[in-house]
């Protein structure tokens, strides 16, 4: 049952987006998410939706995978929409009992919902088209400049990639321990919250012990293979920018400038509301 959880939801296929350098995708996601917060009218959002739709089309990832990521924030989305809808002061459109839906509130609710949705789909597009490994590589190289501030970039990237490698192993182990404890009468499914939390102790203790043992073994194996940190290390798959990566950067820059310009035009009918 625990094996159903998937982390790092990479979708295997071959597309232009998949082949892009991970640094482009990281920067792209960041730029996209930031631009979303600059729009003051719905033209900006329309452009953002259009752009995302285009990229999704190029990535060849089926749309249902994007929506999957939405499930986790559905609750948050609903709350945001409802609060904005009912609690924004302004010109009332519909009123019943003590609740008023205002013009401004509707605009704000729609814009918030759009922001959240685009943000989630945009960033899940990155994880869907980039292998976790590529992603850590991209982070290591792309954030290399942080080294001057004594940030151990290589070490963090190495930890991330080891964590990713061990997630399935530890999940499998949890499953095994759980079954072993259930075979001896442990009950993980009934009782109230406190009781269930208590039942997890005999699961977590052996899991922790074994995780530490694994860490110890792995450290020894890494040292035995001459691992001594990032200095003097070469790369089997070094990241190199290709022509298409520069094209992608150019397109991104154009999108950013153009959509922010269009998104901040004063178009009274399409304004987002109080953000003025």
């Amino acid at each position, binding site marked *: 049952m625990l094996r159903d959880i998937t982390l790092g939801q990479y979708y295997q296929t071959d597309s232009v987006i998949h082949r892009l350098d991970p640094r482009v995708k990281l920067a792209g996601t960041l730029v996209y998410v930031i631009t979303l917060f600059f729009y003051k009218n719905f033209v900006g959002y329309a452009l953002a939706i259009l752009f995302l739709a285009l990229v999704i089309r190029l990535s060849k990832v089926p749309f249902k995978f994007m929506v999957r990521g939405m499930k986790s924030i559905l609750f948050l989305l609903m709350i945001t929409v409802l609060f904005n809808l009912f609690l924004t002061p302004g010109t009332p459109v519909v009123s019943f009992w003590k609740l008023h839906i205002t013009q401004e509130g509707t605009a704000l609710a729609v814009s918030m919902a759009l922001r959240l949705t685009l943000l989630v789909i945009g960033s899940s597009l990155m994880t869907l088209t980039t292998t976790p490994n590529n992603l850590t590589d991209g982070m290591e190289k792309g954030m290399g400049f942080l080294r001057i501030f004594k940030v151990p970039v290589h070490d963090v990237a190495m930890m991330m990639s080891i964590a990713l490698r061990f997630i399935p192993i530890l999940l499998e182990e949890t499953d095994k321990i759980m079954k072993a404890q259930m075979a001896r009468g442990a009950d993980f499914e009934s009782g109230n919250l406190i009781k269930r939390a208590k039942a997890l102790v005999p699961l977590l203790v052996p899991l922790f012990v074994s995780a530490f043992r694994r860490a110890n073994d792995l450290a020894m*194996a890494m040292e035995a293979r001459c691992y001594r940190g990032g200095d003097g*290390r070469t790369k089997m798959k070094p990241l190199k920018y290709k022509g298409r990566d520069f094209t992608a950067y150019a397109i991104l820059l154009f999108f950013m400038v153009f959509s922010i310009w269009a998104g901040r035009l004063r178009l009274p009918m399409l304004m987002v509301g109080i953000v003025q």
Partner: protein
Amino acid sequence: MSIVKTENVVYEYQRLDEEGNVEGVTTAVDHVSLDVKEGSFIAILGHNGSGKSTLAKHINAILSPKEGSVWVDGLDTAQEENLWEVRSRAGMVFQNPDNQIIGQVVEEDVGFGPENMGVPTKEIWERVEESLRAVGMYEYRKHSPNKLSGGQKQRVSIAGVLAMHPKVIVLDEPTAMLDPTGRKEVIRAARGLNQVEGVTVILITHYMEEIVHADQVFVMDHGKIAMQGTPREIFSQVERLKELRLAVPQVTLLAHELKQSGIPLPDGILTRKELVEALVAYKNSQK
């Protein structure tokens, strides 16, 4: 020429009580001296707790001897400045296949060692391909290690060490967690390395079947070397092996029992084929 040499190596583990005081000392390796010739296939045999793994960790400079010295290819492992050189010349494969694979893709894991050594990118790819081919895992190079069987994982680990171009490979109970099929795969890969690539192999194990093809066998007990010789010499002393709590292969045991009940068979029969031949020869001589 000797590639690994140990002289009177002693290593002790301290047992601590709950307050962290020294409760006692266990001598895991007790004055062990051995000399391994370049290009040979050596087996170190012993039951659990005989000190064989502790000894193995000295060859890769993971542990440093308390007394005595260890030389790998002429380098003293106790010298701090030799550390990385020793580790690149003497590779080590451990027992648990899951806990020694670092990469998320087979080929990346094999490239990990050369990356650490600062080998240029192009050469890493050449080394990865050649090592994966040597252990017969080349077609799995794009797979995730999590989806491989135990034997396949261990072969990937061996390839990972091989890609560092070591002179010696120490296999520390590489088969202890595998099923019989996996065990055979790994031993075949190890023998291949020795015969085809000419790498010196030191195999640590407690399965006697695996040492049949070794050039020389050392049997350890209580941190000391209890027996040494060719596999045939070792297997001919069935009673002594039983004393050392080692399981003698069935064929050898059967031959031994037959001999004790009066059938004149040669000592130290190792394979089924040998036993059949010896029995046929005996039958013919009876006519």
